[in-house]
């Protein structure tokens, strides 16, 4: 029998990635302390990883359900294209962004339906759709053309929300927050930690509700609320000039990670995802609708890849036909490094976040220590193999 600490570690798929993260961090901190240990390099890691990080959330969920999606890079490309094409053709930017995400969900739906209708392994299906979806980009923007926002406007698009709508939205959000705070406050679990956490959550919701209401009362209801869409989705966060290039996409990445962590570990759907990937037939025998779970997981994966594409467009403000190419392997590597089992049934969203951050840190660290940037791919490859070995060893502990 192993000792309790290593056993407890073994119950957390992301444990190995955490250890690896700290090890790699310490390594580069010792090697190039001046450049690596700076806000600038932290910002560069997080900003560059937020986009693949959001894609990795969906890929992790899907991999836990026992399936693969090789087409995420192409989905990201098509969604970026849909968003920017519509936005540059006088569609309201919010509607264009929604259409981009919807397109991603639809492509995920196609992947999922092909899987449950044909029973061909998803590896093969999405290898096919990877090429098909890429062809959409390549034919829609042919001849080396690049779609640019700057071709239609010098200024970033704004979304105008009428004052009354803003007020209604604020009240709705506040009601939901108060409702959540009430339920969390009433929860009386035996476990001290869970109890503390729900009390904390209740307090947080209460504060947030007060803040939202206060803000809406302070606003003039006859003035529209002006949202700088590119800025909100992926603008720079100003925290002092020296701090480096922190962007909004980091916030969205972490918020989405928290939401999907909850979805996966604390809801019936999440339980169905684990069961479907762990032993699909046994899950089906217990009344779990495994095919529905698979299709929904594909839709989520496509939707997240598309959302990542939309966020990326908000920063780059252009789309080229090869946008997102090669992303799938980088993301799958990050998810596997994060402790998710390739065959499904085991893994975590937190692991996917740590894995993505780890690969980004490795890249930045190598660049800063003067290693040719092309060596980065080899380093990632080695890391995947080491990570799988470590994760397998850790899992044996239990």
């Amino acid at each position, binding site marked *: 029998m192993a000792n309790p600490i290593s056993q407890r570690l073994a*119950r957390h798929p992301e444990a190995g990635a955490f250890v690896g993260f700290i090890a790699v961090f310490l390594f580069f901190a010792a090697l190039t302390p001046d450049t690596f240990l700076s806000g600038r390099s932290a910002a560069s890691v997080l900003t560059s990883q937020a986009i693949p990080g959001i894609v990795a959330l969906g890929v992790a969920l899907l991999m836990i359900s026992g399936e693969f999606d090789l087409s995420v890079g192409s989905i990201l490309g098509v969604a970026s294209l849909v968003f920017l094409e519509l936005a540059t053709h006088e569609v309201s930017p919010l509607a264009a962004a929604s259409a981009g995400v919807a397109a991603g969900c639809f492509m995920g739906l196609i992947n999922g339906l092909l899987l449950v209708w044909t029973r061909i392994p998803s590896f093969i299906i999405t290898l096919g759709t990877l090429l098909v979806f890429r062809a959409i980009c390549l034919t829609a923007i042919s001849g080396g053309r690049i779609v640019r926002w700057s071709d239609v406007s010098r200024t970033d698009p704004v979304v105008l929300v009428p004052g009354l709508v803003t007020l209604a939205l604020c009240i709705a959000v506040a009601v*939901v*927050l108060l*409702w*959540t*705070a009430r*339920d*969390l406050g009433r*929860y009386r*679990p*035996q*476990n001290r930690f*869970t109890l503390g956490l729900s009390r904390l959550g209740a307090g947080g*919701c209460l504060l947030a509700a007060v803040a939202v209401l206060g803000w809406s009362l302070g606003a003039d209801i006859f003035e529209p609320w002006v949202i700088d869409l590119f800025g909100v989705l992926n603008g720079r966060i100003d925290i002092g000039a020296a701090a480096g290039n922190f962007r909004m996409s980091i916030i969205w990445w972490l918020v989405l990670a928290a939401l999907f962590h*909850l979805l996966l570990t*604390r*809801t*019936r759907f*999440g*339980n169905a995802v*684990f*069961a479907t990937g*762990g*032993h699909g*037939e*046994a*899950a*089906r*025998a*217990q*009344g*779990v*609708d495994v095919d529905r779970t698979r299709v929904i997981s594909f839709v989520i994966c496509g939707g997240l890849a598309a959302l990542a594409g939309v966020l990326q467009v908000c920063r780059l403000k252009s789309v080229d036909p090869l946008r997102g190419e090669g992303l799938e392997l980088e993301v799958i590597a990050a998810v596997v490094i994060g402790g998710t089992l390739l065959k499904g*049934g*085991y893994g975590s969203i937190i692991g996917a976040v740590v894995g993505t951050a780890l690969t980004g840190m490795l890249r930045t660290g190598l660049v800063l220590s003067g290693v040719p940037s092309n060596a980065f791919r080899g380093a990632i490859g080695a890391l995947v193999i080491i990570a799988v070995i470590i994760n397998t060893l850790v899992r044996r502990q*239990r």
Partner: protein
Amino acid sequence: MNPALKNDSPAPLVQLQDIDVGFGHIRALEGACLELHAGEVVALLGDNGAGKSTLIKVLTGLVRPQAGDIRVNGESLTLASPSQARKQGIEAVYQDLALVPLMSIARNFFLGRELTRSVGPVRLLDEEEMDRQASRALVQIGIQVRDTSEPVEGLSGGERQSIAIGRAVHFGSKVLILDEPTSALSIGETEKVLQYVEAARARGLGVILITHNLDHVYKVSDRLVILSQGKTIANLPVEQIEHEEAARLIMSGAGRKTPSERE
């Protein structure tokens, strides 16, 4: 109880008639029949590959038959999915589909019917309640587990089997199906399973027991049904057939149909 009387009652709990199932060009069932009454234990017997597991999967909605009639409480149904069968109070312990190894005992116990609590607009799993109820239910049935939040992976085959049986016994309200439940169990555990079967019958459930052990059959069942190559070749009260003859029928496959045909 007199089985002959029960066979006269108008609506059996479950009635499977002329069930055909094929997998590709394999004919797993060809006109198989099975009847089960409340408060009755039916032993479903037959050689390996006779179609026993397939027949009970038809009853639990896991396998869609190509032909045949399924009646529950006299009402004709198409069981399109396992959740439909579960809503009818039919629970099974499968030979090959017991638990999800990487999930905890409690999560396996409540798989497909997780307990939730509402938090604002969403429903979250009530893990603590599931842990509590699962360990209480298992202890009540006499199954000791250390910690229901532990993954199933680390348990022995017998422990897993016990948990799967405990789950079916706990949730089964009308029909309890056990497909070779004692194959991984010790003598003591096997005794316990036979006791669950008798307790379920006493509570008025219908029980289908698939086993290769004829001693168990004669100990607990009221009637036996023998399948051979996808066909029902015998359906008799245990009193009407000797141990040796039953064994011969199971092995030879050549046999009599029903008591009425025999007379």
